[in-house]
């Protein structure tokens, strides 16, 4: 290797370590906010934000890093909520196991959806995921154990590992925060892994990835299953937070809402979906106390966002910082 290429390697490593420092600082700041939040804000509200943030991050893994627009993610979110609620209430399982079952259910459902949809491109992929998710919705409406219009109410939060009483708001809060951090870390790692590299290559130029010998549909399927499982993790957690699993979580509007959160915050950025979810949840709870029609206001914000800052809040911020640097 020549001296010049040695220099290049050093440059590459230095840039990476600079990025790492910045990311570590960002993470530390985020963690501090997460730890302090329940003392400033209403814990249930922050927990709701965290559940939706994880859901949006899971969705973003698929659209932002694999380029796949799923319009059926409510099935994984809401489906897991039902399974977790049923496991905790009827089977009397501990909370950690109930959530795990919910996420596992979504993983299997994701594998089934993915196997059917992954060969289709663009709008056809979105339509198939939507159709399959609608089937899950009708099952949730008709099956006995889901309780139809009533949903599953009064889900017990139980004792975590038999040690921690989740009925204590703060204990529950830190449990939810831990789940969120686990999911976020897993997504972070996935994006920055050998697998994540291939995924980005497929998003950028699928025929080229195929020509390099990658069986792209298998990579997309794994991304889909990961995304579905994490969406399920978010849904199961939400069922314990609100002690409720209902049709709201599984209907198509929920699939739309997660698209909105991700686009608003910044698709393909790691923090964007968190910001987007926080914004939408905050707006919804704020607007609920006024006479304004919530969907109209959110819709208007979405239109403005799409017209003025297409990269989303975090995406625009990153682009601005990059411009200033150069």
């Amino acid at each position, binding site marked *: 290797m020549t001296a010049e290429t040695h220099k290049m390697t050093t440059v590459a490593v230095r840039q990476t370590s600079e990025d790492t420092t910045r990311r570590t600082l960002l993470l530390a700041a985020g963690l501090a906010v997460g730890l302090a939040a329940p003392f400033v804000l209403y814990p249930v509200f922050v927990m709701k934000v965290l559940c939706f943030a994880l859901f949006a991050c899971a969705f973003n893994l698929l659209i932002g890093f694999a380029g796949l627009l799923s319009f059926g993610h409510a099935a994984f979110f809401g489906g897991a909520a039902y399974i977790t609620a049923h496991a905790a209430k009827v089977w009397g399982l501990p909370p950690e196991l109930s959530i795990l079952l919910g996420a596992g259910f979504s993983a299997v459902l994701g594998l089934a959806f993915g196997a059917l949809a992954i060969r289709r491109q663009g709008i056809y992929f979105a339509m198939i995921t939507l159709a399959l998710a609608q089937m899950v919705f009708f099952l949730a409406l008709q099956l006995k154990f889901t309780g139809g219009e009533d949903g599953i109410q009064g889900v017990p939060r139980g004792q975590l590992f038999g040690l921690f009483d989740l009925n204590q708001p703060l204990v529950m809060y830190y449990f939810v925060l831990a789940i969120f951090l686990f999911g976020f870390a897993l997504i972070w*790692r996935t994006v920055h892994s050998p697998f994540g590299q291939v995924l980005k*290559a497929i998003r950028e*130029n699928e025929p080229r990835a195929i020509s390099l010998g990658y069986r792209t549909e298998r*990579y997309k399927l794994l991304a889909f299953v990961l995304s579905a499982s994490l969406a399920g993790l978010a849904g199961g957690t939400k069922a314990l937070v609100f002690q409720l699993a209902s049709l709201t979580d599984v209907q198509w509007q929920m699939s739309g809402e997660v698209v909105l959160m991700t686009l608003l915050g910044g698709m393909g950025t790691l923090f964007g979906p968190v910001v987007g979810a926080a914004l939408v949840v905050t707006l919804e709870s704020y607007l609920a106390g006024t006479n304004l029609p919530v969907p109209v206001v959110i819709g208007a914000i979405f239109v403005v966002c799409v017209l003025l800052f297409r990269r989303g809040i975090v995406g625009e911020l990153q682009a601005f910082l990059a411009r200033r640097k150069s």
Partner: protein
Amino acid sequence: MSEDIILEARGLSKEFKGFIAVKEVNLQVRRGTIHALIGPNGAGKSTVFNLLTKFLTPTRGQILYKGRDITGMKPADVALLGMVRSFQISAVFPHLSVLENVRVALQRPRGTSFHFWKPEASLYDLHDRALELIEAVNLTPWANHTAAELPYGRKRALEIATTLALDPEVMLLDEPLAGMGHEDIEGTAALIKRVSANRTILMVEHNLSVVAHLSDTITVLRRGEILAEGPYDVVSRNPQVMEAYMGSTTAGEVGHA
């Protein structure tokens, strides 16, 4: 079949809803040669190319790679056998850096490409090899830039570096010189010549003069059929070939068609 034929098409045909794009093409690519597939617009060059790499499925006919029938294989599996293609529109991963573009190809044989739990740092030991390949195509100053920032000619060079990362036995280049300025053409042609050592190259070109000194064998296609085949001297004097190229009758004009 003789031993030194690495890639062969037998009676290859492709129809698109009644339109015959490629008709009964028999092609033999000898091991270790540079073979050019040329022809005017709409001659079916790219279709033949896509058929050979399995990006299209032939209506009829057979494709043999090292004597093995690959007609029913998937495109990714053909690549695993050692036959790697490029694309007409420069095929890079625009938002990955030049280094990452090459590394994506290098990481495949490792078998860790499904490992979503491993850090990216597990790939850093590939950087030396990646930088060697980048150096070979004179892209070293660009290594940390995203591929989108490269000028067109350099994107093609990056594409060749990425393809070389797989160390393919057969490289199929789809119009590697198209859209390039004169100075880039010479550089890239020299690059192709250089990387052809110990390899077989099949390239599609529009322009006869460009491939004149580069290729050992030239196959001329017209309206989906083979018109002529042989070394440049033979092919360029073929009256039917001159006719195909805008009806010109002199070899000089053929070159600029």
